[in-house]
């Protein structure tokens, strides 16, 4: 009886940990037209208005925007494209990778 109670709890704990880790999705948007600091605020504001966005980092030299989503939230490419367009720029590419992949090795 005791064994059968502990096992499901342990499995749920492991799955929760795993899903929490996997939920930290990070996306990299390559944005064309981004050429000055004052313009970058517009793109940050548009992306922050999307549900589930936890953090945004703009690299103006690379023309890239790194979007970190909250746990279990995801960023849809169509949404990202629209947000970039509303900011007055053009989305060139959209890539999703997990936080571990983005960390320097």
């Amino acid at each position: 009886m005791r064994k059968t109670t502990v096992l499901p709890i342990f499995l749920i704990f492991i799955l929760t940990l795993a899903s929490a880790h996997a939920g930290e999705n990070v996306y990299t948007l390559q944005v064309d037209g981004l050429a000055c600091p004052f313009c970058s605020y517009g793109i940050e504001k548009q992306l922050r208005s999307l549900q589930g966005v936890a953090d945004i980092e703009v690299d103006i030299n690379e023309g890239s925007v790194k979007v970190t989503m909250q746990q279990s939230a995801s960023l849809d490419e169509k949404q990202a494209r629209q947000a970039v367009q509303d900011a007055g720029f053009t989305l060139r590419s959209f890539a999703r990778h997990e936080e571990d992949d983005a960390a320097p090795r």
Partner: protein
Amino acid sequence: MRVLLCDLLRGMKKTMPRPGKNGLLPVLLWLAASAATQSAPITFNTALPVAKSEFVFRQQFIVNQSGHDPGTAGRDRTAWSAMSVLGYGITGKLALFGVLPYVNKSLGITVDGKRIERQGDGLGDISLFARYTALQKDGPGRTLRIAPFAGFKAATGRHDSSDDLGRLPASVQPGSGSWDAFGGIVTTYQTLDYEIDAQLGYRGNGSAQGFSAGNQLRLDASLQYRLWPGTLTGAVPGFLYCVLESSLLLQEKNHVNDRVDVNSGGIRWFLTPGLQYVTRRWVLETALQIPVVQDLNGTALENAYLVRAGFRYNF
């Protein structure tokens, strides 16, 4: 328009600017309104970047000094203005802008050996205009945009102020009393290292109390070159730009009670060095407008210089 172009060609042939007298009012009105209606460049507003559902606010403080009166009146005019510009992005391509100046103008003049000063201040005429980005070509770290714009200036400023000597001359009134329409096209090419903006604009001036300022054509250009940081490494650092702008203004003659005022209108060309410090939320900017050519009809008062300083904020 043909008259304006002829005036331009004629003006370019002359090396020495001629002083004038009665063309002061329309030029002053235009300078006030042009600062209001045009400026990412420092001297015109039409290239201001603004995203959808975003506001941009620009506040500029301008000193416009005129003088060098060749006549015996010894006219000397100083105009201080605080120009507030608010832009809003309706979509990523369509933006609306409003401009409201607060002005303080003083005119010194010698009459019968006695120095007199007339002064007027208050809110000036409000301007509203829309800009639509018709062409946009984006690439990595660069963008090209071409956008027509159109708007109007409303007669909201007071134009019947008076002092102890009676009604103030029109050149000292905060408002013009007329409704004016304007439009044009603005283009921007921006890279990470520099930005070039150019604007061609035309203003049709209305009339008020029997006075109609001459219509105006202007061609502006602006180069902003990044001085600092020399090398971009990452994130979004602040940029320090050195700026050089050119403003060519052509104005037709005024009409007073349906008669042409031969002492009005003409050509002015300014070169404007300046500095801008640009961050992701705010911009600090300053510039000095230096008249290079002033070929004015009749005896209009020339500009000595204009100083601009201010800031921008995104929200």
